[in-house]
């Protein structure tokens, strides 16, 4: 009797299985025909790292501080740079990343003080060799001269503003004893604001992309 029950019970379980697969047979497939259709990328999609192009300067903001190069666990970032003739700001003159080594962990993005690194949304990256040492500055080289001129102007303008402010403060100081203090506070505030604006800009761009 146990034998019969076992055989029958087994048979029923088999038919249950068959009925499940039969039902699945007539359902719509869930796959994507990959090269013809492409998945919608997640907003957080991480692909090769790139330098952010800021609207106000039309260029990146890498100051070659080497923070990313130092933190990179794959040692795949190579940066050179420094002082550029004519402007105060430091600039990167070489910024290459070897994406054959990069693991897209994002530590470089985390440590970047000027928030000029982000993930690109490149998709379908494949190649025939392992030469993935990419020059991140490539798209900026044409603008570099223009940037430097503009940056000089900006810096001059900022210096002029500062001077004017200082003059105004000085004028005020004639009446007010706390002049020195005020100037300092104003300067600090401005620097903080600038940094914040940069950050917000960077994040917005990331979000939009």
């Amino acid at each position: 009797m146990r034998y019969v029950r076992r055989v029958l019970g087994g048979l029923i379980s088999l038919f249950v299985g068959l009925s499940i697969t039969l039902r699945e047979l007539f359902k719509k497939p869930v796959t994507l025909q990959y090269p013809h259709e492409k998945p919608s990328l997640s907003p957080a999609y991480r692909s090769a790292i790139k330098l952010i192009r800021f609207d106000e300067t039309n260029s990146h903001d890498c100051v070659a501080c080497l923070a990313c190069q130092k933190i990179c666990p794959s040692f795949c970032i190579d940066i050179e740079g420094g002082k550029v003739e004519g402007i105060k700001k430091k600039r990167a003159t070489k910024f290459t990343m070897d994406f054959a080594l990069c693991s897209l962990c994002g530590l470089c993005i985390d440590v970047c003080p000027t928030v000029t690194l982000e993930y690109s949304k490149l998709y379908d990256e494949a190649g025939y060799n392992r030469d993935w040492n990419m020059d991140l500055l490539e798209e900026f080289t044409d603008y570099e001269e223009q940037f430097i001129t503009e940056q000089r102007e900006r810096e001059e303008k900022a210096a002029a503003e500062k001077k004017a402010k200082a003059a105004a403060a000085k004028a005020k100081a004639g009446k007010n004893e706390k002049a020195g203090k005020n100037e300092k506070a104003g300067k600090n505030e401005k620097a903080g604001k600038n940094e914040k604006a940069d950050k917000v800009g960077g994040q917005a761009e990331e979000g939009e992309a």
Partner: protein
Amino acid sequence: MSNLPTAPETLADYVSGNLWLFFAIATAAIMGYLTLNALFLIWLERKISAHIQRRLGPMEVGWHGVLQTVADMLKLLSKQLVTPRAIDKPLYHLAPVVVFAPVIASVAMFPFAEDLVILDIELSLAYVFVFGGIGIIGIFMAGWGSNNKYALLGAMRSVAQNISYEIPLILSALSVVLLVSGLEPVIINDNDQLRPASGISLIDIAIVQDAKGWWFVLVQPVAALIYFIAAVAETNRAPFDIPEAESELVAGFHTEYSGMRFAMFFFAEYTNMIIVSMVATVLFFGGWSGPLLPGPVWFFGKTYLLIGGMMWFRWTFPRLRFDQLMSFCWTVLIPLSIVNLLVTALVLELL
């Protein structure tokens, strides 16, 4: 194929001089059919499995990938035949042929319609089983000749499995044979000679069902089920695919075969499927008999439906373990088929 002369008269006519021509044409036709059939079945299997798994399967070559298998075959044809060094050469090279050849021979004996049969042999049912048995030798040759432990294990499993499952297979077929001989005899006009239908001839079995108007599956459901299970095991398909069990034995007996040699095994598997399904069609589902549509349509329709069932099985169940497979055969199928046979005989005696 329909313009081929039917067997009973033509054999007599052609014996005089055209026998070789006839066989040449017939063999070519069968080969062509089997090749197309295998290509189609492989595509069908991939499609069915894909849709069961909520995929689309091959989509690139031809309409819904229908030519995919043709492309695959071309690829296999163009591939290098890798021959391992330490093999038993004659066995290794002969094995694919030994596996493939008998299945061609079997197909010749099926009545696709009442007047459409290539070789009408009186003992055709027995012949089909005999040819079915030869393939196992080929599998064992492949396993032994490859000089590979996985292949040998697969081959030994295969032999044990096939020999065991042949018993319920034949016992369940025997119930039908008994039925044909034991029922009120149907008289067949064979070349103007009247004779009672023989249970061991495929065409006679089909004729009897056609004449009676009902299929044997109705009176022999247990035999039909046993036959179907044993047939799946005979073809080494999941859930009885332990000879090639890819998760255990890599590829079983054909581990060392590549290119077209591998394709021969592959073809043999799918051809075996169609043979056991054709036998089932004739034994239990009335062969070509059916209303309205012409005989061959019914015949092939039923056959491919059964094959679809086998594929459905394969993509639903996990694989049995070797000892379970054997004990299932010896403790469930064989006793059941013997009981079924005895009951059939008893009922026929009482009627």
